[in-house]
């Protein structure tokens, strides 16, 4: 997409389906109206797009369906402000603008042959879902796959149908946790970083990929370091307020790097080379 056409011009898509994931998160399955464009749309796991509601504005979301399943592009949107509120009002058949793909992606080539340890919290499960599904669709390329996924309460867990599926699979391990006890909850209780410490995965031949709210990421990174993970074995995604998404509006820099083009995916080793301004 670079250079050839106007990068500010969204492609028009249509909402195929809306799934209420949690009280404040909905997933939207979107197809581009131009069938040729939809067919030729290429992206990598972890890349984002700007969704447009014309008249309200744009906001950034990761494309959380994997490139191995191109029937539609899925976005999971947590209600946070103006644009997300209007996105939540969308119904099947409504138009939506899509500008992307934007940003870098998970270095899945470098992870081949390794054990993968996903650690997700809240809406941070969205980018992890893309990579997880991509890896499950290319299962033989990767070693053991583990997902530790936490939410505040059972009803705050996204992708409930898939979670059941993942739980049933014998080629991956799923650990679910919620912040505190709930009557119907018979799985783990505790904050993600604490559960991680209890589980104490060995860093041997492993890559840990974590995504979630800033505070969760901070403590998860600490826990991983305590467990002996090296900085280049840890991958995370950063959030910044974005507008252009293409390195021009100047908004999302951390030192010389722009989260919108050099990120959102960074290894901990890369992060440590940046000025401490997260």
């Amino acid at each position: 997409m670079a250079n050839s056409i106007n990068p500010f011009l969204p492609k028009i898509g249509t909402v195929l389906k809306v799934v209420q994931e949690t009280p404040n998160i909905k997933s939207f399955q979107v197809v581009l109206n131009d069938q040729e464009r939809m067919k030729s749309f290429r992206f990598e796991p972890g890349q984002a797009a700007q969704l447009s509601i014309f008249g309200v504005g744009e906001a950034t979301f990761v494309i959380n369906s994997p490139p191995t399943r191109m029937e539609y592009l899925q976005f999971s949107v947590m209600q946070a402000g103006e644009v997300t509120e209007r996105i939540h009002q969308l119904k099947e058949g409504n138009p939506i603008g899509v500008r992307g793909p934007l940003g870098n992606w998970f270095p899945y080539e470098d992870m081949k042959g390794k054990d993968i340890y996903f650690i997700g919290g809240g809406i941070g499960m969205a980018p992890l879902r893309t990579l997880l599904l991509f890896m499950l669709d290319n299962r033989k390329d990767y070693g053991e796959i583990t997902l530790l996924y936490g939410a505040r309460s059972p009803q705050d867990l996204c992708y409930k149908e898939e979670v059941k599926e993942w739980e049933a699979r014998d080629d991956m391990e799923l650990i679910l946790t919620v912040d505190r006890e709930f009557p119907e909850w018979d799985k783990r209780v505790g904050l993600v970083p604490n559960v991680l410490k209890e589980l104490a995965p060995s860093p041997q031949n492993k890559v840990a990929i974590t995504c979630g709210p800033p505070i969760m990421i901070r403590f998860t990174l600490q826990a991983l370091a305590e467990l002996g993970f090296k900085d280049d074995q840890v991958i995370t995604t950063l959030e910044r307020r974005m507008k252009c998404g293409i390195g021009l509006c100047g908004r999302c820099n951390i030192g010389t790097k722009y989260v919108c083009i050099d990120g959102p995916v960074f290894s901990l080793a890369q992060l440590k080379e940046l000025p401490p301004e997260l």
Partner: protein
Amino acid sequence: MSNKGRFLATDKIPGLLKRLGGTYRVFAPVKVSDTVILFHEFKEGAQLALNKQATLPPKEILFPQTECLLSYTYHKDPENLEKSEVQVEETLEALPTIIFGARPCDARGLMVFDAVFNDGQWRDPYYKARRKATTIVTILCTQPENTCFCTSVGGGPTNTEGSDLVLTPVTGGYFAEPATEKGGALLQDEAFALGHNKADEAREEREKVSLESELELDGIAQCLLELFSTDFWKQVSAKCISCGACTYVCPTCYCFNITDETAGVKGERIRTWDSCMFYQYTLEASGHNPRPTKVERYRNRIGHKFSYHPTNYEGMFGCTGCGRCIKACPVSLDIRQVLREVKVHG
């Protein structure tokens, strides 16, 4: 410079601009009050102010303070009001334009824009089209002001980088020399007389200009990184009131925002100037703000201009030393003083 020089008498300029106005949009610095000079579209009778730096740089002509990126229209299905379609149209317009009477620091400012908007990984089609359609006529500075420090940041009062036609003030007018083909084309106009007898005077005028490089900026990028986590920024930004004036008057600042404006079923997506000195600029939806106070914001502004931009763009500073932020700052923060202190402490 070349021997293709021509002489442009001062009294021929209004006629020249009027004729050029037949083919181009012509912008020139006009005196709007005793203290304010602005680039306006030239009209006959306007009071040209060519002997002083304009209050604002001409960046607005290529990168408008407000511009439309696209327009959209919703079409409702009368049978089913739940259903709607949206049609989006690109609104890209680039008319042939002349900026007459820029300063070398203004022309170099556009080179900072070029690096980001024209030659980067992603191009900005709006800027790109306007840039291509624009010819820059620069007047060299034979009398720099006391706020000017262009020589310290790689430019100079007689620097011609980024200009298409270069004018050197001489007795009775200007000696005009083309720096690009685009600039040379303007010399066809009848206002330009044969100027061989002025070439020597122009050269002498240029040689006479004295603006010493007052700042020693070698290694400043590294100094800035070393100071990043120190209290230094608290001290230097103490006076700042986050008004953003420094960014609005700057010929190299390009941060922008994008917002939608709707009237009924139609609307426009608008790009407007924004400023890294504002709290909202980096405020995230979660409420988290990576640059919550003026300390981080001031640090980022200086860091961007003197460390990040040069690191990303082959050593070019994001500052052309025009001194406008020094003149505009309501609390008299002087970027030169800050840079000196960076070198002392870093």
